């Protein structure tokens, strides 16, 4: 029996959230038993990785065998079981039960309660395990687990008297931080087969072909085929035809980490482009690079519609200036004529990390009632979201309305730049708003262009104080969610899709978000050795589809970035709080209506055919075909 899915999109109501039900999957599949078995295990995983939200709303969860013991995934093995562990739930209080640690998950179960209380999370979400204080008089030791997904867990366990025996938490620490313990990540062991291979979703050349590239102004360069020009860039790069590869090498020397300006997206009509790169190495002396200037000129010339170029530097101008002392900097207007430099004032990864840390303090475990709004304000999280969205909006507006090409960079061009270009592309190109299109967008702008997922998330690494960690990607998904709220019919995916992506960002179940760059992924042979998250998602699209979606192929979205339209993503950040009870599912009603429409349409067509048949057969005695008087059925939503 499958679980009837987790209802983790608690608290969401306007957003088109989802109703996971594995039944719907099996009923739509052709080879029923076959497919549901595929979907079963990972869906259990995904649901459980987020499903602690249900533990408090048991009516939503059918407690099957799965709650008695963890349903193990293929290659998942139990490492240790400890009875008599106490989980200090911040909402219910102390719960005694058994704790199971596998090489993938932590599973806690308390049978004293009715219904049975279950806590089931992938070890990947654990950021830090700490012993709190020494052993109490009864020999109890307290452990705190700080998680990456906005919650903290606390357990109390008796220290084993036999000092040779390891505590379950020592086992847990070993498997929670496999990288630090020279163990493989679980993704390399997990080998579930899915009907679809998610690694095939993205093909750089196919995506550029879809955009109409190469064309008379743009070529696909092989200069980075072996990642020699830039080890954090993909192998296929789109550059102006007028710039030969040798000049690109010289540009690479002038751009931080060799991340030269390359094309990310081209407007299908105006040929205005979105270009990304890293900061120029201008330094305090304002060093210049002829080839770089020529490249930017060529980018401008490739777009006949405009004789200007906008350079969006995502950083606050002070930071950009400060970077000069470290050899970096920004494009001076003397060197780059016809280019206009704009600073978007978005803060760096450290500020963002701090902001999310504060947000976690405000929302977990409990919300302070009297100062909710000012506490929320003090985190500045929404302000950062607003700045990022506003920046992306300006980029999209320049490309769409002013038909001008834009160059986007920050310092290294893999954090804020990725946020901005991908959001702008999401606004400009409806293809990226489909489920597969969004996967392509992530594969392209985030994974292939080297957002450093390994460093930013710290997969399996116990060094939780690492300054390279930052929730840049979470922030991006939050921005996408804000857009889906403003345009509920424009996105093919639902809220559950976004939450699932974030859950598997940490779970280390799939290979998708491992490593820092395409080069590393190739080297680690991720495609061969791990499963893609998209395999899992694309094998059960029903779960992730937005029932409100209407496909308009060439439709540009300009969201409102006024704070009156931005909200905290309660269904993600506050989902562990049991008082965030699920809202009535609006989308169900909508699905019902859609089904009804399909049924009626079928019926009408059937009748029309029948009438037509009848009419032709009896047309001799009935002048005027009856079908003609029938109003054509228009199918608009």
């Amino acid at each position, binding site marked *: 029996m499958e679980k009837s899915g987790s209802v983790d999109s608690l608290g969401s109501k306007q957003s088109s959230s989802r109703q996971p039900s594995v039944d719907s999957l099996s009923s739509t599949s052709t080879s029923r038993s076959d497919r549901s078995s595929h979907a079963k295990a990972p869906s259990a995983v995904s649901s459980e990785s987020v499903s602690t939200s249900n533990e408090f709303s048991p009516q939503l969860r059918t407690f099957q065998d799965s709650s008695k013991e963890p349903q193990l995934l293929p290659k998942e093995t139990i490492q240790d079981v400890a009875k008599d562990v106490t989980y200090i739930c911040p909402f219910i209080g102390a719960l005694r039960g058994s704790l199971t640690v596998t090489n993938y998950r932590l599973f806690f179960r308390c049978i004293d309660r009715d219904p049975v209380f279950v806590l089931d999370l992938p070890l990947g979400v654990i950021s830090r395990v700490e012993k709190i204080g020494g052993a109490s008089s009864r020999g109890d030791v307290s452990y705190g687990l700080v998680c990456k997904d906005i919650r903290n867990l606390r357990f109390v366990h008796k220290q084993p008297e036999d000092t040779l025996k390891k505590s379950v938490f020592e086992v847990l620490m070993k498997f929670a931080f496999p990288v630090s313990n020279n163990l493989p990540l679980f993704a390399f062991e997990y080998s579930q087969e899915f009907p679809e291979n998610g690694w095939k979703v993205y093909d750089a050349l196919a995506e550029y072909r879809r955009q109409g590239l190469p064309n008379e102004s743009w070529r696909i360069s092989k200069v980075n085929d072996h990642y020699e020009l830039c080890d954090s860039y993909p192998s296929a790069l789109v550059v102006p035809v007028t710039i030969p590869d040798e000049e690109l090498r010289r540009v690479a020397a002038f751009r931080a980490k060799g991340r030269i300006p390359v094309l990310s997206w081209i407007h299908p009509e105006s040929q205005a482009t979105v270009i990304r790169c890293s900061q120029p190495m201008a330094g305090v002396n304002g060093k210049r690079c002829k080839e770089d200037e020529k490249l930017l000129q060529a980018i401008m010339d490739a777009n006949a519609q405009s004789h200007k170029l906008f350079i969006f530097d995502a950083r606050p101008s002070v930071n950009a200036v400060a970077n000069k002392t470290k050899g970096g900097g920004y494009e001076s207007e003397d060197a780059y004529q016809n280019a206009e430099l704009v600073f978007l004032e978005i803060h760096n990864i450290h500020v963002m990390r701090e902001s999310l840390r504060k947000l976690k303090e405000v929302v977990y475990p409990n919300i302070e009632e009297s100062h909710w709004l000012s506490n929320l304000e003090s985190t500045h999280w929404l*302000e950062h979201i*607003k700045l990022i969205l506003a920046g992306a909006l300006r980029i999209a507006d320049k490309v769409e309305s002013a038909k001008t090409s834009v160059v986007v960079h920050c310092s290294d061009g893999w954090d804020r730049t990725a946020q901005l270009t991908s959001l702008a592309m999401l606004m400009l190109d409806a293809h990226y708003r489909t489920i597969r299109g969004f996967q392509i967008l992530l594969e392209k702008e985030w994974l292939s262009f080297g957002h450093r997922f390994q460093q930013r998330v710290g997969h399996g690494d116990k060094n939780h104080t690492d300054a390279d960690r930052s929730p840049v990607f979470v922030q991006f998904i939050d921005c996408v969610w804000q857009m889906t709220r403003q345009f*509920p019919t424009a996105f093919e995916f639902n809220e559950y899709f976004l939450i699932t992506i974030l859950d598997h960002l940490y779970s280390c179940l799939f290979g998708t978000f491992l490593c820092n760059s395409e080069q590393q992924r190739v080297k680690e042979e991720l495609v061969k050795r791990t499963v893609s998250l998209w395999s899992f998602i694309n094998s059960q699209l029903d779960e992730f589809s937005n029932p409100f979606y209407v496909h308009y192929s060439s439709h540009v979205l300009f969201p409102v*970035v006024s704070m009156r339209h931005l909200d905290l993503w309660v269904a993600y950040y506050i989902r562990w709080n049991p*008082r965030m009870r699920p809202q009535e599912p609006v989308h169900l009603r909508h699905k019902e209506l859609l089904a009804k429409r399909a049924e*009626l349409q079928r019926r009408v067509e059937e*009748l029309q055919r*029948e009438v037509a048949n009848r009419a032709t057969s009896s047309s001799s005695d009935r002048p005027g075909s009856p079908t003609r008087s*029938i109003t054509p059925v228009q199918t608009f939503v």
Partner: protein
Amino acid sequence: MEHIRTPKVEQVKLQDRFSNKSITGTLYLTATHLIFVESNSTSAQEIWILHHHIASVEKLSLTTTGCPLVIQCRNFRVVHFVVPRERDCHDVYSSLLRLLRPVSYEELYAFSYNPKQNDEQREEGWQLIDLAAEFERMGVPCDQWQLTDVNREYKVCETYPRDLYVPITASKPIIVGSSKFRSKGRFPVLTYFYQEKKAAVCRCSQPLSGFSARCLEDEHMLQAISRANHNSRFVYVMDTRPKLNALANRAAGKGYENEDNYSNIRFQFVGIENIHVMRASLQKLLEVVGTRALSMTDYLQGLENSGWLRHIKAVVDAAIFLAKAVTVEGASVLVHCSDGWDRTAQVCSLGALLMDPYYRTIKGFMVLIEKDWISFGHKFADRCDQLDGDSKEVSPVFTQFLECVWQLTEQFPQAFEFSEWFLIQIHEHVHSCQFGNFLGNNQRQREELQIKERTYSLWAHLLSEKQNYLNPLYNPILAETNPVLEPSTQPCFFKFWRNMYHQFDRSMHPRQSILKHILTLTENNRELEKTAQTLKAKLQKLGVSTSPLGLYTPSRERALPPRPQSLILGAPLSRKEAQQDEEEEEAVFGEEAREDEPPGSDGERTVEGSSATENGYPELQGTFESKSEPAIVSLEFGVARMTC
């Protein structure tokens, strides 16, 4: 009208509140309205503002372009005119000052408004809501509660209605005695009866207890209420005020019930602030959200400092307490505040709304307002400033109630038959003075004014366009399975009601609405069903029998008349108008236009949403929304946009 000095001013500029945009047009001043007509002949937007809606007029100091005139309305519209000549500006200003301060009820719009109905229709309209029938629906009178005629002539309490329901054991002397011990004579009477547990919700005003006074009749009265309910041995007495306020009242010879004197009560303070705090709070809120280029910090802190959402939460909390006491414990509850016509009305009506699904229907909500607000004497005339009166008496108590209901509809999107547009329309007409329902302060006054003979009922008007107010997500089956709503009161569930307070600020409206989407879908299905029916009929004529149609029983959607154009959601505007304002308009019209297109067609690139301005904050952009007014004047186009 003798007060109008200049009926028409040309070349007046209307400036947008959140941007630097402006349009030029002509300003007309009529006996009932201030009208602005854009001079651009092709679009000719019109804005009609009813004088009663104007809360304040302010003349700012002269600038190079002319004399600015800022008008704030009670429906949260703010318009900013620039009149080229100061003289004209002054004329309009002083005329308005007089016009927006009617001195007698006879001057109110309701007495001149005529929707072309005959007397019979008008009378029917007034008979739509029958409170006696409502009490019957609750199961009153019954073996424990009876109708009393003690207030037939408004002798015991002039702010109460004539028909009152009291416990069967409460004799006339007890009632009269109790009323003498209660502020304004508002003694405890029944307002809602929870049949399932025979528990009653009663309301009254504060006792005149001072520091030590007691009244045996009043104690008897509470005992009678207690005895009428066999489920519980005590009655909850909810004093909706903060304790401090109640204590202060004791010095004035008023106060609260002493638990020692009343043998069987449980006393509870709830802590809802008074009308002055609420007025100031809303004022602060409006200042915050009216700021141009508002930063996130100012917004969130301003929202919190205004306290508005905290006050909303306090009212909802009180209602939840009431509903729990009645439905879970089966105890009767007596609710009061100071006079028992503001906070008491809020808590009683919201509590009943949580308990009884009937009040969550369109008709039921009207009954609820008629009962707890109109008949029990919420002072609409004073609170809404209908006549030129004491500004200290003005307070957004009723607005607050509507907002509480809205917050509930957000948490329970399927539980209400009506949409937020219905709430906004009621709010609009509470202030418009176009219908008689809300005129005056109490039933007695309304009878003196011969409201039913001389004005029309809002309820009839709203019911006649009922389909505009329907919530497409409404699921009546839920009302049977979960009749009692249990809202969550986590602070993140209380949100700023953008569509109410920014109703007329086009740039603040959302771009797409699920509501609209579902409405279209529902209509589609209805069409399809009709087509199928026609086809079936045709086939039958042709002599073929068909299987019964579909699997679905077309429940309540079938009988609805077609949705009229240009009302709430997504009324297509004329294309002519659409071409006017490219960016912003394009956004909305684009969407409308696309509805005619089959999905997936490769049309031209369409833009949705406002475009980014140079500073990246498109909220500064925006054009004015307006269009020719429909037959009923104060219907504003704002909401039509807002939900789109």
